[in-house]
């Protein structure tokens, strides 16, 4: 966290004039064949204008290495070499997984060809169709080949700009497993399917359609662009084809006079992947008794406890963290093995970024934790855990007199009072007797 924060300050100090920055750093390594580098110039220039520091490297070049002395050299890596079968020895599926563990973000392009990256995709719950079967669609009718498809973009998607025109796509689809960390971004059109280009026999296709299930790669359940956020918070985006970022598709019109949405789409995807948008963090959390301000290490059973969390969202325009009150479904758990209390942690009006809840500690003593575990698709995960002890009342913490006990109090008090009365009367009687005796003696 400290490392991250210092990085943010560094960025803010370095470039206040630039208009959009990532929250984790602006060094980007682009692994791309040198002869294809110019095919993506619009996308790369867009990143440079934003202030990213791009370094290009051929897939087989030895330098610059991605991990040196166990430290990631770049904040983000783009792998636009979908057809390369042999990479330099430091770019292996295993090292890419290591990179994610070191909070590096990745954009990885796939292709219908079988490469080491296709097997890596399987580790992220993406299943690719058999090699050599790109996505085809004969709808809508158009001049382009069947493998170049205009894909309608969902009108409202948390990651993408709203009302984007369709984007051109060419490449392989993938089916999504049920991994909860997957963030689907773009899905295939309903009338599309994966098949061998032209060479595929219609019979084989019909066969596959009749068998259904795993034999058929078709329909809108297939993913084309899919994000994945690891539990560490790093993000990786899988592109079904590198062409979606290309200049050719960015400048191609989807219909007469309507430019394609590719450039903005690429921009939005990079924005999410490079931690510019949808980045949240918990600044701090506190807890205390009602009507006090100091956090305690010990709470007593049935205490009224106030728990407060301060949450910020990264604002890429000002490169700063701003308090954020937009979360409506945050929950606080008070757990000892199981959540004894799970309650809504709601934003406080008029105090941006502050979330507060007051609850009664359970009538149960033990070691409890205040837990926030907020995991939503597309947003950074919020996790916080604070351990406190809940103890039974101390020996002097109980009420001194109980109204229910008054019959017994009366019994005890009346006994003592009666004892004093008895003793007093007894002694008085004794002395009187003596006096009487004395009188008699005289």
């Amino acid at each position, binding site marked *: 966290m400290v490392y991250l924060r210092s990085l943010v300050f560094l960025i803010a100090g370095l470039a206040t004039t630039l208009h959009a920055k990532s929250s984790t750093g602006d060094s980007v390594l682009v692994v791309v064949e040198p002869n294809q580098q110019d095919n993506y110039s619009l996308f790369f220039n867009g990143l440079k204008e934003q202030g990213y520091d791009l370094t290009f490297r051929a897939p087989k070049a030895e330098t610059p290495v991605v991990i040196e002395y166990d430290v990631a050299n770049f904040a983000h890596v783009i792998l636009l070499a979908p057809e390369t079968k042999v990479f330099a020895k430091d770019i292996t599926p295993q090292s890419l997984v290591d990179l994610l563990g070191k909070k590096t973000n990745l954009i990885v392009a796939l292709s219908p060809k079988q490469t080491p990256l296709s097997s890596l995709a399987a580790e992220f719950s993406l299943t690719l169709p058999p090699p050599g079967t790109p996505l085809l669609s004969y709808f809508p009718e158009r001049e382009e080949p069947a493998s170049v498809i205009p894909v309608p973009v969902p009108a409202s998607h948390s990651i993408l700009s709203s009302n984007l025109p369709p984007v051109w796509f060419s490449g392989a689809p993938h089916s999504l497993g049920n991994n909860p960390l997957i963030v689907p971004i773009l899905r295939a059109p309903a009338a599309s399917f994966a098949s061998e280009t032209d060479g595929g026999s219609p019979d084989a296709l019909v066969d596959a359609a009749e068998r259904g299930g795993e034999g058929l790669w078709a329909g809108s359940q297939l993913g084309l662009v899919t994000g994945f956020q690891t539990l560490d918070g790093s993000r990786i985006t899988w592109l079904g084809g590198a062409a979606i970022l290309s200049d050719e598709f960015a400048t191609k019109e989807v219909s007469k006079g309507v430019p394609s949405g590719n450039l903005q789409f690429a921009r939005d995807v990079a924005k999410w992947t490079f931690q510019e948008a949808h980045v949240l963090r918990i600044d701090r959390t506190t807890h205390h008794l009602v009507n006090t301000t100091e956090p305690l290490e010990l709470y007593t059973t049935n205490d009224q406890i106030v728990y407060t969390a301060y949450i910020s969202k990264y604002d890429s325009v000002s490169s700063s963290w701003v308090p954020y009150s937009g979360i409506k479904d945050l929950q606080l758990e008070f757990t000892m093995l199981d959540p004894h209390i799970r309650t809504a942690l709601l934003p406080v009006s008029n105090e941006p970024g502050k979330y507060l809840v007051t609850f009664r500690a359970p009538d149960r003593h033990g070691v409890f934790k205040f837990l926030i575990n907020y995991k939503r698709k597309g947003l950074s995960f919020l996790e916080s855990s604070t351990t406190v002890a809940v103890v039974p009342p101390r020996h002097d913490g109980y009420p001194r007199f*109980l109204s*229910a*006990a008054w*019959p*017994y*109090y*009366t*019994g*005890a008090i*009346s*006994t*003592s009072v*009666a*004892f004093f009365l*008895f*003793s007093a*009367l*007894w*002694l008085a*009687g*004794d002395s009187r*007797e003596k006096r009487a005796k004395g009188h008699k003696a005289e």
Partner: protein
Amino acid sequence: MAPPKSSPAASNVVHTLWKAYSGQTSDRLKFIDAFLVFLMLSGIAQFLYCVLVTDYPFNAFLAGFSSNVGQFVLTASLRSQVNPENKNEFKEVSPERYMTLYCGRS
């Protein structure tokens, strides 16, 4: 206690007992007996309350009830010591000392 009218013999016995008691017991012993009766009634009342109504603050019940019982025992022993009939058994103990011991123990 049996109702006096239904069994004249029993009532007769009780009557005789009562007469003998009030005739032969000194006032001071009667005074102690009154105190003992009070303690006994109070203890019975607390015990019944505990059994029939609630024993909720059980330590309060224990305190109230045991103070009653303890006081009863001490007072009963005081009674046996000041009783003129037992004079021979407590020769060496002076009446002042009974009372001092009694108060001290209470």
